[in-house]
């Protein structure tokens, strides 16, 4: 059994997939930042290789319209073992020369499709749950925390919607930030060192909290239902729940 360790990027992962297809013996894939210390398996470091990555990408595109997007979204979930499930799904697809996505009776394909769906839903949810603070001028910023790596799926939306603003959304756990401005967006590494808290934006935050409390109908109070849609773990960065 060989552990294929790839650098943490989509291109790096596709390069490792290419390598996995060449191997007849058992293998597992793992991100470089998830592997530390000694492992029982033989270890092979796979560097990102653009031509290999492109071949895998083209292969996925030939299988079906949604295969690459589904694999990418599932990969962003960073779930344990999702890389291996993606490889197994692609092996079945390439082996039978068919779009593997409808074959939900196969557990590895089902795992990939469900992970992708869940990541997509969470990314959509966080388009609404991200609260921006006005820093100065046209600059607005927010902090973001999630088990999934959702920022790459949110860039297009924030760039298009806030066309006259510059936005920075920081993911401290992954030390990266989504940066938008002038009609473009990208994911950048955050500099090393402590991440300073965002400055307060008190006037409109107070107005928002006041509105949030006023608009709920007390005769229909249902905190359990509220928690179902806004779990406690998501409330740290939500203005309306701070101070409660």
């Amino acid at each position, binding site marked *: 059994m060989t552990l294929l360790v790839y650098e943490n990027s989509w291109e790096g992962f596709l390069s490792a997939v290419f390598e996995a297809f060449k191997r007849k013996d058992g293998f597992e894939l793992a991100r470089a930042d998830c592997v530390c210390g000694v492992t029982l398996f033989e270890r092979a470091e796979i560097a990102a290789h653009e031509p290999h990555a492109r071949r895998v990408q083209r292969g996925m595109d030939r299988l079906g319209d949604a295969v690459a997007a589904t694999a990418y979204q599932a990969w962003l979930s960073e779930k344990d073992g999702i890389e291996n499930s993606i490889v197994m799904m692609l092996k079945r697809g390439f082996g039978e020369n068919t779009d593997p996505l*409808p*074959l*939900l*009776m196969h557990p590895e394909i*089902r795992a990939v499709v469900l992970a992708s769906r869940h990541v997509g839903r969470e990314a*959509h*949810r966080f*388009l*609404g*749950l*991200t*609260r*921006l*603070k*006005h820093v100065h001028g046209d600059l*607005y910023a*927010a902090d973001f925390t999630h088990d999934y790596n959702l920022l790459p799926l949110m860039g297009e939306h924030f760039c*298009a*919607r*806030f*066309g*006259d*603003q510059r936005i920075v959304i920081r993911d401290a756990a992954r030390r990266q930030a989504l940066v938008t401005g002038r*009609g473009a967006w990208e994911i950048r590494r955050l500099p090393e060192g402590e991440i300073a808290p965002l400055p307060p*934006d008190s*006037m*409109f935050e*107070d*107005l*928002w909290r*006041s*509105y*949030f*409390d*006023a*608009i*709920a*109908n*007390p*005769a*229909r*109070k*249902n*905190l*359990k*239902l*509220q928690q*179902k*849609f*806004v779990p406690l773990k998501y409330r740290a960065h*939500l*203005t*309306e729940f701070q101070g409660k």
Partner: protein
Amino acid sequence: MPDLMKKLEILGDAAKFDASCSTSGGGRAGKPGQLGNAHSCGICHTWGADGRCISMLKVLQSNACIYNCEYCHNRRENDVPRATFSSEELAELTIEFYRRNYIEGLFLSSGIVKNPDHTMELMIGTMDILRRKRSFGGYIHMKTIPGADQLLIDKAGLLADRLSVNIELPSERSLELLAPQKKPENILTPMTHIRNTQSMYLEDGKKFSHAPLFAPAGQTTQMIIGATPDSDLSVLRLSEGLYRKMKLKRVYYSAYIPIGTHPTLPEPGTPPPLLREHRLYQADFLLRFYSFDAKEILEHSSPLLDMEVDPKCAWALRHPEFFPVDANRADYETLLRVPGVGTVSARRILEARRLGPLRPENLRKLGIVMKRARFFLTAGGKYEGSARHDHPFLRELLSDHAQVSQLSLFADPAQPKLAAPVSALPAFSGLDSA
């Protein structure tokens, strides 16, 4: 700021009875370098303490009102704090909330200030500042005031994504009794005008790529449930008529929270009929997405929805001759009739079927709720339901006890005081789908 805060508290609180929260159905592309766009699927931004989605700044332009509708918190005779936003301050508030990603846009209603036309002009003033001066591309839903001039409705439609006229109560007689200043023709005429104007602009849009948009997210309405003795069958027939004849996108149902002291209304303090509202929404989905007619969901002999089972299960229990359905042969509409099979899982069955015959173990993986569906579905000649198929046994298995107990926490739902047979209360002339 304290002034603005106070106004926002009063006018946000006054708007909480409006159930509509949707920001979907339209889709407005933003302009490069400018603020705002709208997604056709809508985005929810947060959820209030009542569990309802908050995706817009939902406020009244003013809660001053010349009308005295018996069921309304803001009626003229009620002693409540009154406030009015100026168009500039409401537009500024909307923009600043939008910039911080608190909202998708603005939901604007109002009490009637002086007269319907004056009220519409105030609201159009706010939208005009947003769209024309501030180039705001976000979502705007505007309430149309019954009785307003058609030229003002035309102006509003060119600025808003969605328009709505509240039908308020499920029959003309109820309206006459509880809101005599709101004439039925003042509600139906603007609805018809919006439908016709929207249709005309849609036709123009097919021919000219730069034709302006008129209320691209369509129109909706809302009715209050539990304030009057109108049955669920009357409500559903009216909704069906609104969907078919007025081409509405949505009908919203709002459980009545008793505040008035009119002799026909439930007394203040009576719990709102939340479970009945929930069942009506389920029945509404059957009308819109499951190809049901209102007369299939309920009959004159039994005009009230079953509170213990959802309307689709209730239909299935009444029609055992329709089942079992073969998952490998049935068409889409037939599959939709099976309890536990929704629109998404029915589509998945059709897609998976193309790759090979389905067996019962495949169905669960396609998202079908086999706990219910197994009594009504076969696959590959196999039936996973029980040998017992009698009505009480199935009914017990399909009952939604958890939901019923949650929504019936308040022991006695609001009961209207007037009792009347269904046929004595016509809905709205020209809208009844029967």
